[in-house]
């Protein structure tokens, strides 16, 4: 649920920041705090990016330069890392995030058809967000719930043995504005 909370705070506060393309003063202070907290750890870039995304809901482009400077890296290095990993977003997600498993054990239990149907109903593709900004659906490859497939994480909480009706209920709950 934490992700959901962060994302909604994000929606409320983010508009101004992205207008200027620069972090608002309060955001800059939060970023400073994250960088200070990781000052002594070796190879800190991933932990820093995770913390930034947890705080802001995504990795704002304007955060790249301060991160690079603090970690003694080039901006290109930081951007390269952000783009390499599937987890890091360069724009906010919906208020809820459904990570739906696309891997083999879930396929063996009908996961492929289930996912296609849900995406069609929501009118989005993998990684897409519903028009009302409520729900983002992301692909994941295995959640370690392979003996009770098909499985998903909704805002970090596991759900399993999904079937059409169960997934519809989840999506409807998450989709509600």
């Amino acid at each position, binding site marked *: 649920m934490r992700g959901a909370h962060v994302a909604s705070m994000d929606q409320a506060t983010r508009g101004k920041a992205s207008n200027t393309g620069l972090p608002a003063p309060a955001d800059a202070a939060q970023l400073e705090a994250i960088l200070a907290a990781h000052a002594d*750890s070796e190879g800190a*870039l991933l932990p820093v990016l*995770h913390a930034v995304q947890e705080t802001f809901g995504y990795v704002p482009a304007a955060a790249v330069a301060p991160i690079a400077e603090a970690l003694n890296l080039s901006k290109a290095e930081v951007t390269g*890392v952000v783009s390499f990993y599937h987890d890091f977003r360069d724009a906010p997600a919906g208020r809820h995030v459904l990570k739906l498993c696309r891997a083999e054990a879930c396929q*063996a239990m009908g996961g492929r058809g289930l996912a296609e149907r849900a995406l069609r109903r929501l009118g989005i593709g993998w990684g897409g967000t519903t028009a009302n900004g409520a729900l983002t659906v992301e692909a994941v*490859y*295995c959640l370690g719930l392979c*003996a009770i497939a098909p499985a998903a994480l909704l805002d970090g909480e596991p759900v*399993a043995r999904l079937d059409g009706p169960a997934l519809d209920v989840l999506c409807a709950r998450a989709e509600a504005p």
Partner: protein
Amino acid sequence: MSRLFLPRDAAALALGAEAVGEAIAREASARGLSVEIVRTGTRGACWLEPLLEAETPAGRIGYGGVSPGDVPGLFEAGLLVGGAHPKRVGRPGDLPWFAGQTRLTFARCGIVDPLSIEDYRAHGGCEGLARAVAMGPEAVLEEIVKSGLRGRGGAGFPAGIKWRTAARADADRKYIVCNADEGDSGTFADRMLMEGDPFLLIEGMAIAGYAVGARQGYVYIRSEYPHAIRTVRAAIERARGAGLLGADIAGSGFGFDIAVRVGAGAYICGEETALLDSLEGKRGVVRAKPPLPAIEGLFGRPTVINNVLTLAAAPWILAHGGAAYAALGAGRSLGTLAVQLAGNVARGGLVEVPFGLSLRALIEEWGGGTASGRPVRAVQVGGPLGAYFPESLLGTPLDYEAFAAAGGMLGHGGVVVFDDSVDMAAQARFAFEFCAAESCGKCTPCRIGAVRGMEAMDRIAAGTEVARNRALIDDLCELMADASLCAMGGLTPNPVASALRHFPEDFRSAAQAAE
């Protein structure tokens, strides 16, 4: 006060364990009963989750597949004293599903409170480390070599040799890195252990640190495992408080500590050198070997990088001796294997058995056949890079060499069962698609080959130049197998070629099939 045990493993939570816990608390207070609910990991019978247990004079009595709606009836039936009820399964350990297993690594999982160091000690924890520091680093290396322990992450490399290499290397710092990226689909043993018995992993890493002279450890856990991340972090805190980690571990005068690092959704970061780059804060790109990580690993320092289960095997080996471990198993695959039975299977979960059991025995006796009740048609072993076996190969014993001889690989022990509704052409296409999505991009055969393979599969499905595209796939498989830098590109031909070889009827175009 009565005691109940309820798992909080992610699999149990996914099946509603939290709501069951709330229903129990409500019902108990409505009845004026004082009940303590101990939250455990899972014993691994995912098919029985949520598995609620009551402490009684006759032992712990289990109730399987409990839903919140069952709770009032369970209390009515005398849950707290193990009363009769349709969901009652008796003592879980007496079920053939558990009685037939040999639990060494997973002996405590599902039984203890994962974050109670007292529970851990009371169930034999910390004995391995105590013996290790009493015998000295050299003797520890000796025991691990003698045990025949091989890496559980997939490649099956002897752990003792790796540890010894790092121990002999001269450097200002050394590292122990635990590979908890567990990216293989169909696998969950690492997750289950981290959520159910995290002190075992910590103890194993401390033993490794002591043996090779490394003072810092990292556990690299995939971000898809939020519960495991929280549990391991909390366990590390408590292990420091209990002297299992810190400046003086187990009174040895040797200092060792561990930090958790979280992955970011990249399958390739399970490959050891990509993982090390990721830990250094870089893109997870595969490094050319040599140098071996044991000589030049994390930040250029000697590094032992092992899978969760490899490290978690060390405490048992130290406590009971390498020879006792080596007495189990078959051929050159010694000790026990944690098989993860998954996919379309009636009774899926974690089965720890000595190497050598046949795939068929596993699927039929433990798995109880498919969940759908339809015939088994294909079984993929060893994750997304593992081969698909047809029914005729189910006699293959679970053993590294036997699997290789049958054209497959055991990998991390994931077994994914498919029934006869599976479309093997779709599975082969997915193997290319997955490789294309997860390739680190360093070498061309993998980066480009996977995309071209996917396109060729689509053309076959559409009935366009089927023979030519099949030949193209054969060429691509050969090229990827021969010229890829790592096993991501190198083994993607496994699922593709095995699907083509064993299930050719699925690769005729729709047009051909209609003829």
